[in-house]
């Protein structure tokens, strides 16, 4: 990727480039492949284990392919008080997946996450880079169904 080279050059091929590179790859490819780990390690003169350990340390990087839509449902204290757990269960049921899994059609991944700074609109979630607040189970399932429907039309 040309964009990767650009980031690497900006950081002089030093390890500081690693997180920006991983963000880019995660966004473009939906996961961090073995091949990519080797490539980045070579470019920054790191061992593959070093890159691997960084990838696995941060929850936003995944070794398995993420769904096209990543649902990050806040389960932190203020959202929990407002019923986040019930909504989370409803979403699991709707998508027939557990926390951390991806639907078979590759459309959705579901993650229970820590506070995303929308506590004044609790309970809240992110779908990719979009935020949703003041949720309840029905509203949330509706949002997901709407995406499903739009995807079917494509």
């Amino acid at each position, binding site marked *: 990727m040309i964009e990767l080279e650009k980031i690497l050059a900006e950081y002089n091929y*030093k*390890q*500081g*480039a*690693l*997180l*920006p590179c*991983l*963000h880019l790859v995660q966004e473009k490819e939906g996961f961090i492949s073995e091949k990519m780990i080797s490539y980045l390690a070579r470019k*920054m003169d790191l061992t593959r284990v070093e890159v691997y*350990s*960084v990838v696995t*340390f*941060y*929850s*936003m*990087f995944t070794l398995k392919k993420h769904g096209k839509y990543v649902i*990050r449902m806040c389960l*932190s*204290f*203020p959202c*929990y*008080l407002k019923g986040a757990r019930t909504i989370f269960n409803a979403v699991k049921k709707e998508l027939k997946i557990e926390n951390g899994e991806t639907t078979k059609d590759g459309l959705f991944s579901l993650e229970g*996450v*820590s*506070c*995303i*700074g*929308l*506590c*004044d*609109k*609790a309970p809240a979630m*992110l779908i990719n*880079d*979009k*935020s949703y607040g003041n949720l309840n189970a029905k509203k949330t399932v509706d949002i997901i169904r709407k995406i499903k429907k739009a995807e079917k039309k494509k």
Partner: protein
Amino acid sequence: MIILLENIKRKGYNGSLASYKKYGGYEALGKALGMESSLIISELKKSGLRGRGGAAFPTGIKWEFAADAADNPKYVVCNADEGEPGTFKDKLLMEKDPHSLIEGMAICGKAIGTKHGFIYIRGEYFDAFRSLQKALDETRKQNLIGKNIMGSDFSFDITLYRGAGAYVCGEETALLDSLEGKKGQSRVKPPFPTFEGLRNKPTVLNNVETLSNIAQIISKGGSWFSKIGNKTATGTKLFCLSGDIKKPGVYEADMNVTLNELINDYGGGAVGTLSAVFPGGLASSLLTPDKFDIKMNYESVMKAGSMLGSGAVIAINSTRCPVDLAANRMAEFFDHESCGKCTPCREGTKRAKEILQGIASGTGSVEDLSTIRDLADVLFDTSRCGLGQTALNAIRSSIDIFEDIYLEHITKRRCRAGICKFKK
């Protein structure tokens, strides 16, 4: 008194460079460019500003350490990793008034003598990231950051750096490791970042809210700021109200405000009857209603047995089960977020979670309560960073306050709130 939210509350204010400049934006930077570094720092010291990220360290002294350090280059790093559950003030500042932060950082660069700035922003803060990116582009175009700012011999630029989902990276040394492309695990202090920070060079690390105060302090003077609030807690603070409260949100008040005023006058009152409040997030001890008349400044909250932290005020009403919350939200959070570098925190948070979940499911014993209290002491004394040191604070306070409810779960297998499900 309003300082930080002044712009945001103006009619028609949209956070753009044009609107920021309309109300005097970047005049403070212009002023700072003509000031000796030592003069900027002495204004800041005069202001009495203390860090808003949780530790409340005097900002002027921090800058002075870095300015006086012999090594070069130096770095200005903004901690925008806001991850403490219930905290959402930095997000607001970055989304709605990003130039206050940028101007504050440039002034810091001038004061300590560097051209390198970084903003380490939470990976999940997509909107704030976009807002800062746009603001930085605008600023570069008008030469308010970049080479030879406003025609002076001072150059300064800012790199936006995204975190990737690890709460512990908010801890300053873990943040620096993360900024170097490593796993975010805390370093042993000392040396402090002001001496050996990013790439082992002198580094000023400040919270978003801290830096967003700087331009106004330089414009209006340190003594103006020092007269606001309380002697040991000058200026205003952003409080994030959430939980069982009618109008959750970010509110600005000087630090003489009481917890009662925050809940009732600002937050529109409680939903239901409150049984306890976190004055400073999950790392602070719970306060019961008899203490709601305390002033919300560092010293008073400490005296009441808790801490102000980053200003996350989370209200909890009497329909909640404290055992459920301790087991399934508090202990669970710290167990999940422990970076695993040191044993007391890694194992202690896990043990605490297991024990509490045992109590919440009816398999606990009376001794469990003293085990948790012991664990809290051990973690406080032996953990490497603030995460482990404070992880069991809140849980211990919950046990102290609601001991009868814990005992009911243990000996009678009964949950008054009807939330905990007991194993057969």
